[in-house]
């Protein structure tokens, strides 16, 4: 059996507009990362994976378990990404640092989800 692809990830949130705007500012500075499915649902692609931001009334304002699911965003220039993230005023769990294999940083989105930015060394 072929390996089924992970087509998309749905993020449940109490504030979908805030989350959409944050991910757009963080990773799509040119805008237009997300299309509006409904006033409370937004869909975007980050490479091979779709991200669906789903406004819900049955989740709290903050993720009670941010270590449960962590999305790793791979970028071509992690330092430029980090600079942009700092300009929009994000909260870092672990600032960008050189580790074996590349640059790694962990930040917290407005819902309290942990996400990582990674730039692998070439070669």
């Amino acid at each position: 059996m072929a390996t089924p692809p992970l087509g998309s990830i749905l993020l449940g949130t109490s504030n979908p507009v805030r989350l959409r705007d944050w991910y757009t500012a963080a990773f799509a500075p040119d805008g237009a990362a997300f299309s509006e499915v409904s006033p409370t649902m937004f869909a975007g692609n980050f490479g091979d994976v779709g991200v669906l931001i789903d406004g819900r009334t049955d989740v709290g304002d903050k993720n009670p378990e941010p270590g449960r699911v962590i999305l790793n965003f791979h970028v071509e220039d992690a330092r430029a990404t980090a600079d942009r993230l700092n300009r929009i005023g994000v909260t870092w769990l672990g600032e960008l640092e050189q580790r074996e294999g590349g640059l790694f940083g962990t930040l917290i989105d407005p819902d309290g989800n942990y996400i990582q930015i990674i730039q692998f060394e070439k070669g």
Partner: protein
Amino acid sequence: MIADPPALSMSASLEHGAHIRTVVLGSRAPRRAAAWYRRALGLSGPDEVLRAGDVELRITSRADVEPTAVEPIRTVLNFVVDDILEIEARLVAMEAIWVRELESTPWGIIGTVVDPDGNLVQIIEPARGTLPWSAKGREERS
């Protein structure tokens, strides 16, 4: 109720921007979780590092998560499958818990189960072609 995938066409994408290449699941029982994903969905890979299409599903041991997800609706993993009835049969044989049994929708057949850590896992067999809301669908694999 988990939202259905949107049926609208979605052209927005990031050609040169950030790409999600790995999803890390924090677990108190990563081996059990990895075994479940192998058996249920046929994911493959060494130890607790599994391949799901072009994305890596990495299951790591974390002490800061409960044995069962506290708020599972925070994150739902949507897997695109070729033969959803085959997957359903596997899940039934495994006595998986269904949040939503298989249901036909205009864009395909969808069902939702709970993994051993309480995460919500959705399986989708698209009606035809690629899913409008997903960069990768079954079109490359059929």
